[in-house]
């Protein structure tokens, strides 16, 4: 079975059909593949090539603000002349300025800690949902998905009012006499953690839930009957069986969190450092397109392995569904 699978399955009848109809079917089949393929090639893959290309050029005061690289206008000789003009100055610059290195490292650490926190917060919710009566499970599922439909920006914005020094959380804690002075949470890394855990929680809960829901609960009962305490039954049976969900959830949180911009910008303030914000500022404030391209290329390289793992997990899940 190749790319004409649909016609293959109906061989007996199509064989008797006029030639033109069959040709049409083959054409339609090819179109189904070609249209989205070309779209993604042009709007997703080629842009990365351009980013890489521009990361090798120089900043210039012009529009667009970079020197031309690999121009095909000059023919073959012009192309090779362009090759000689390529340089890795922007990358050298990134290694020389400690700020960028620090931003990368901080982003990865923040994303890793937030992913772990999201897992810790999300696991009990997913577990509770998977053990809930079957009649209310769809409602619970809907309730987890619903915040995902409300704007990311709005949900992050909502936390500013809560975490501010004169915000709702401090008002509550002060009125309960738990603290005497307002806590400084906004514009710290703590606020970023809260923001990421909050915004990405549905991404963690959904894959966890789908792997926990499939689990055979009688395994736990069998373990209990054989005298296994609940805690070790959890670590020996439930958790290992939910590992695919844990991996998918962690990747869904970790990868976008590394390059996150809105949360560090609105909740982290100016004192926190993350690479997504650095890239944004390089681009919008400094208007340095080549350096921001170089920042993006390195960020992409950093994320290649997690993204490939994510893809494999997706392909595997797809195979199992069949």
């Amino acid at each position, binding site marked *: 079975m190749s790319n004409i699978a649909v016609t293959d399955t*109906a061989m007996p009848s199509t064989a008797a059909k006029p030639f033109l109809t069959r040709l049409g079917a083959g054409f339609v089949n090819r179109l189904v593949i070609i249209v989205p393929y070309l779209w993604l090639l042009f*709007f997703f893959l080629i842009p990365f090539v351009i980013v890489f290309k521009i990361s090798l050029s120089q900043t210039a005061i012009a529009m667009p603000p970079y020197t031309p690289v690999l121009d095909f206008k000059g023919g073959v000789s012009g192309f090779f002349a362009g090759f000689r003009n390529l340089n890795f100055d922007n990358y050298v610059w990134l290694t020389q300025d400690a700020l960028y290195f620090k931003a990368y490292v901080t982003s990865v650490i923040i994303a890793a800690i937030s992913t772990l926190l999201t897992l810790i917060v999300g696991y009990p919710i997913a577990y509770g949902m998977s053990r809930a009566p079957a009649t209310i499970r769809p409602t619970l599922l809907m309730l987890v998905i619903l915040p995902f439909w409300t704007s990311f920006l709005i949900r992050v914005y909502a936390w500013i009012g809560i975490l501010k020094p004169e915000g709702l959380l401090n008002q509550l804690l002060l009125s309960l006499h738990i603290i005497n002075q307002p806590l400084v949470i906004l514009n710290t890394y703590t606020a970023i953690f809260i923001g990421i855990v909050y915004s990405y929680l549905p991404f963690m809960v959904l894959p966890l839930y789908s792997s926990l829901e499939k689990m055979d609960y009688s395994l736990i009962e069998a373990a209990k009957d054989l005298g296994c305490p609940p805690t070790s039954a959890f670590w020996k049976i439930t958790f290992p069986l939910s590992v695919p969900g844990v991996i998918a959830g962690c990747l869904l949180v970790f990868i976008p969190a590394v390059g996150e911009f809105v949360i560090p910008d609105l909740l982290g303030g100016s004192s926190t450092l993350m690479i997504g914000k650095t890239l944004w500022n390089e681009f919008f404030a400094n208007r340095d397109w080549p350096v921001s391209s170089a920042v993006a290329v390195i960020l992409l390289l950093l994320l290649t392995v997690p993204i490939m793992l994510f893809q494999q997990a997706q392909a595997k899940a797809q195979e199992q569904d069949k």
Partner: protein
Amino acid sequence: MNATWSRFNVTSIVLGFAFLYLPIVLLIVFSFNESKLVTVWGGFSTKWYVSLFHNQGLMDATWVTARVGVISATVATVLGTLAALTLTRYTRFRGRVLFSGMVFAPLVMPEVITGLSLLLLFVAVGLDRGFLTVTLAHITLTMCFVAVVVQSRLVSFDRSLEEAAMDLGATPVKTFFQITLPVILPAIVSGWMLAFTLSLDDLVIASFTSGPGATTLPMKIYSQVRLGVTPEINAACTILIAVVAVGVIIASIANKRREVQRQLDEQTAQRG
């Protein structure tokens, strides 16, 4: 089931949902605040909604966002459905690994990278930044989400229905429109809605790819938030949440009704 476990489960669900919903509820409550301070209650008022409708910049941005959302979601739904068909139906063709990579990678790709790379593409091909470029960018991002939603429905699809239709003489194209499409329609509808909300929601990619005259609502909200938090933004956010919530509720009711109808049809068919 063990009672302590069950109590633990209920507690974790309640706390989890409180964490998910409390910030949104507070945001909505304070949009009706008389006081200009977002966090101090000064009595009930709808004046921020009134001032919202007199804010021309915000209204223009809303109109731009709605148009970008509808156009990009519609195109993305077509492309995403085709991509989903490709992923589930054509298991072997040259470049399939690359294709599935290009469908799944945008789902997790940090937005700053996607935004920057699309902008550089538009500059390279000489396309002026504006309404068109934002729409193209949103199509690219959201079609992948549509593809995943539709694909999950296609995987559980009973292929023998299609085979029966074609054995009875329907052309593949006719089979698709008469058999396949009605079955996967709920997934396509929720794919469209997801694409629309993602477009409505996007700040980062829009900021990179938009130009003068095509400021979207999130861009407007973001620039106002940077200047300071005001109840007017709360009001704008509340309206946005209400629109999406109503849409989701209507879609889920319609979905449920269609499901019930389908089950009834199946029962009738079995009896007949």
